[in-house]
């Protein structure tokens, strides 16, 4: 009896073990035969990347980017034009070290929402009812405020963001970008109206931009929205650095040329030019201005989301619109 059991055990172990061994040998030869040579640097580069797989670099995922970077280094001896917006300069330098290259620092970018058409500035004329999708609403009508360039406020950009960096402000109905933004550009493509633009973060996160993309003449633009750019070109005249261009009644500030002098902000009659993260000006008694009322696009001003990060002692709340100073 006992020997029979022993036999069964031996047969089982021997059979399975033998099978395993044969399979292992076959696998070994097949693996050797079909081995694909891959540059070990690809793995190394991929390791250094942030693994967000966001597609912000233009490649489907970090692995594809790593391959492209290694190939580019082999073929052209540089990785120009291939930068990982999420990783920024730290990752860029790391890649340079791995690939043995000098990598120039890129200016860090951030998504900027160029519309200030909150219900206060652009009063509602109609009530929208339907799917929460900007792409659909864009095909349906101009916008609740009547401006056909305005933000529709339905949050396609929020859905597109992989980094929790953009949220709707429930008071203004406009999206607000916070510091987590990696400039991957997902929101830029998601916006059916091309309101969001990637701009330079600027020194100490200071930026100046035109928060409007209305290409109508002044009168119809102003009719729908009190803070629309009316194309008056006053900003163009005061700019000493040739940074402002006016095309189809719309001013655009070239962030490469802008020196952040803030002259344009002062002259803008509709407060369409926004300055972000500057210290509030000293009040000028002769000219009480409202132009400093700026919605801060670099900080998350949605209180429910990031209440811990907003430092109330450093924020000046004026007319329902906040100015918040960032890092010191």
């Amino acid at each position, binding site marked *: 009896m006992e020997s029979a059991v022993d036999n069964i055990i031996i047969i089982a172990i021997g059979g399975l073990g033998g099978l395993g061994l044969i399979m292992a040998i076959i696998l070994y030869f097949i693996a050797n035969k079909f081995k694909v040579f891959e540059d070990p640097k690809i793995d190394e580069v991929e390791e250094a990347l942030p693994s967000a797989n966001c597609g912000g670099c233009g490649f489907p995922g970090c692995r594809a980017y790593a391959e492209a970077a290694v190939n580019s280094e082999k073929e052209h001896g540089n990785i120009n034009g291939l930068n990982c917006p999420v990783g920024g300069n730290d990752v860029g330098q790391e890649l340079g070290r791995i690939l043995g290259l000098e990598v120039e620092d890129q200016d860090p970018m951030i998504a900027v929402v160029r519309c200030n058409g909150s219900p206060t500035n652009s009063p509602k*004329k*109609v009530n929208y009812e339907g799917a929460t*999708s900007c*792409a*659909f609403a864009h*095909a*349906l*009508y*101009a916008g609740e405020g*009547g401006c056909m360039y305005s933000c529709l406020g339905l949050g396609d950009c929020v859905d597109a963001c992989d980094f929790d960096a953009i949220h709707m402000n429930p008071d203004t109905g406009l999206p607000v970008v916070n510091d987590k933004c990696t400039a991957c550009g997902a929101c830029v493509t998601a916006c059916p109206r091309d309101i969001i633009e990637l701009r330079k973060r600027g020194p100490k996160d200071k930026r100046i931009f035109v928060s409007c993309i209305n290409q109508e003449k002044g009168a119809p633009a102003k009719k729908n929205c009190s803070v629309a750019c009316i194309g008056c070109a006053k900003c163009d005249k005061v700019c000493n650095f040739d940074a402002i261009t006016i095309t189809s009644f719309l001013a655009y500030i070239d962030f490469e040329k802008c020196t952040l002098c803030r002259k344009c902000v002062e002259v803008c009659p509709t407060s369409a030019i926004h300055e972000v993260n500057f210290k509030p000006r000293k009040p000028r008694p002769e000219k009480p201005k409202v132009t400093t009322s700026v919605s801060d696009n670099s900080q998350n001003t949605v209180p429910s989301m990031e209440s811990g990060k907003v430092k109330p002692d450093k924020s000046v709340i004026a007319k329902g619109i906040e100015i918040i100073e960032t890092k010191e």
Partner: protein
Amino acid sequence: MGILRTFALGGIHPDENKLSSNAAIEEIPVPKQAIVPLGQNLGAPSKPIVKKGDDVKVGQLIAEAGGFISTNIHSPVSGKVFKIDNSMDASGFRRPCIIINVDGDEWDESVDTTKDLISDINIESKEIIERIKNAGIVGMGGATFPTYVKLMPPPGKTAEYLIINGVECEPYLTSDHRMMLEKGREIVIGIKILMKALNVNKAFIGIENNKPDAISHMRELVRENDDIQVQPLKVQYPQGGEKQLIKASVNREVPSGKLPIEVGCVVQNVGTAFAVYEAVQKNKPLIERVVTVTGKAVKKPSNFRVRIGTPINVLIEAAEGLPDNTGKIINGGPMMGKSITSLDMPVVKGTSGILLLEKEESSRKVEGPCIRCSKCTYVCPMGLEPFLISKAAKLGNFELAENESIMDCIECGSCQYGCPAAIPLVDYLRLGKIKVGQIMRSRKN
């Protein structure tokens, strides 16, 4: 009468509410200012050929076709071109328009303004199409597809049947109904012209059974013509859809993604047939159309013949004013029309009706969870599964939506009309069609 024909799949029967079906067509005086949008047809917008300050006469060409699928636009009024500038269209977008300040009502000499009926057709197919093209005629049912394009079948395809759409399946609208009753003789001649242009021997006039007066009137008019047949149809929405009407009239199904010419059919609206008559026999371009102004609260639901470019508030005034409790204004019928954001928008070639909904009926019901009752599937005239593809579009799974034939959706709204959970199915279907369309185009490039 036996069993009435209708289309095979799905369909609903919403309340008809044809409030204005007994109101004879009224002429509306020429407005003080006409706003003529340059993009009035499906396809490329037209190019203006007049300048600010030019004097124009009624029927004078003021903009010419800006591409193959595009049309000419003629001045609907006489006066001076005030400016060429952006003006609001139905959905609030500001688009280029020619704005004309009206002065008198002087017609271009070439237009025959007499009321005589000319029934002899003495020109050839090619010239008919040329005249229709020059007159800027588009589909008057609302889709505004240039008519002459439909009359030129692509090489290798021939038309067998001409189907005239007198269905008017949209609730409330009555402009086609009144046209058939009042302009029946002209429509029949228009049909004959279209048949000659297409070289077909058989035409059907599809009319739903809720318009018995129109059926008997048209029957009377075509009694001596064996080749034109009035086809009464069972009342069923969306029978006015091209594919549904072809199925109902000649029992052929247009394959997915194909045009009606694939099964040898060309569909034209009765309004288009009338416009064709005027263009070919009277040399009168498309400068006016019949618009229904209706709604439960409207004091005088009416059918108006108006010049293109008349602001719709003129029409609403003519129907004795905007009711106080108006909650939504719709350009077209309640099932497929578009909401209007401003009363300043002008009547365009495709405006078949202005519907004023009361506040109570203008809000949507509160959306609930899908209970998978599949009523949307039962009523879909295209045999789709709206619950599935709209969900796929909502969640961004456009690949699934495309595989489940989202592009076949005709956006008729039957699914959403009958949804017990009041899910905005059509919103997401339309979103899906926009996105899938983009994906398909990018794949082609």
